[in-house]
């Protein structure tokens, strides 16, 4: 359930940036959520929808942009898509692999008026 507090952080961050840039309302919010970021996208989205009432984001369209997990096998050095942290190399079946992508959790952009 850390998604609730992360959603609060995102709303604060977006509000702060909006004010800095002279926006009165935020109409659009884009967030990148990596498959291996430890953030459950559905729960995070639910939390955001719950918390944006009475904020500048009340009418914002929320876009969660998924970034797939990728790993580099430490044995055969091939890159592959990792759906979870326990995935072994599809090529040589060794484990663990170095996680390269999918750990992102970033506020990409906001738009507003």
């Amino acid at each position, binding site marked *: 359930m*850390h998604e609730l507090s992360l959603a609060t952080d995102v709303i604060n961050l977006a509000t702060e940036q909006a004010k800095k840039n002279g926006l009165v309302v935020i109409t659009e919010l884009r967030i990148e959520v990596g498959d291996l970021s430890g953030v459950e*996208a559905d729960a995070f989205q639910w939390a955001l929808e719950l918390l944006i009432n009475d904020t500048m984001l009340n009418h914002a369209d929320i876009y969660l942009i998924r970034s797939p997990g990728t790993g580099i096998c430490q044995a055969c050095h091939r890159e592959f898509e990792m759906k979870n942290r326990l995935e072994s190399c599809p090529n040589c079946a060794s484990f663990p692999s170095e996680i390269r992508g999918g750990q992102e*959790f970033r506020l990409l*952009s906001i738009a507003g008026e």
Partner: protein
Amino acid sequence: MCETCGCGKPGEFTIRESSETAKRRNSENDHNHHEHMHEHDGHWHSHGQEESSEIKSDHHHGHEHGHDEHPHSHGDEANGHSHPQKKEIALNIDILSENNRLAERNRGYFEGKEVLCLNMMSSPGSGKTSILEKTILALRQTHKIFVIEGDQQTARDAERIEKSGAPAIQINTGSGCHLDANMIHLALKKLEVENRSILFIENVGNLVCPALFDLGETRRVVVISVTEGDDKPLKYPYMFQTSHLCIINKTDLLPYVDFSVENAMANAKQLNPELEFILMSARTGEGMQEWYEWLSKIS
């Protein structure tokens, strides 16, 4: 903390000394702004991850993120509504960066004071508080020990710890499921940790969320008990991947449960080959000596 409307939830938390009656921070603001969650006017909506990077909405302006920080307008005629001065602001900010920044500040504070800080994490009921009680009783003559206790409610754990002889402070996270760097930062202001001491942070009992939040600790310790499944590491990989030591507690109960120490260690090692293990029974004292040696090795 929710700075938007001043409401405490869900970032609301309370820091209190165990001996005191509960004082809730921001109690006058303790209202709930989630009650009217469905009272929106039907205009806003969100888009799920399944839409991936494709924009699909009646606000579609036909471009992707990553554009420059400049105001520009969009084809209003296509949407049937207008955004007179719509601005798009590219940010690309790591959402956890604020926590990480505060964690680094805490880490600097610990290094400067030569404090060994251990973030103790586990499921509820695996025996973290008992391990700490025994540790304090054994080491209090030779070491200065301080404890930060995290729980959703009550000061019971901090009271237990203080009885063992170490100053403790309780953080009640309210609805929160983990401690974060800011809570530690604020608790440190009250706890007045001495130089060259050991600070134990007993995180909220939860194997998921605490793993994500760096507190500035020197080392992370995950505790599991033999009354849990030996596949715990596989179920909560993030926790085991980010820990330095795994204590397997309640080994005195091994004859009565199906827990395989070998399987649990193999599962955890698979995720984190560097992970160290101590088999322990805080009740009988097994493994405690090894634990004290581990503490002196890393301090």
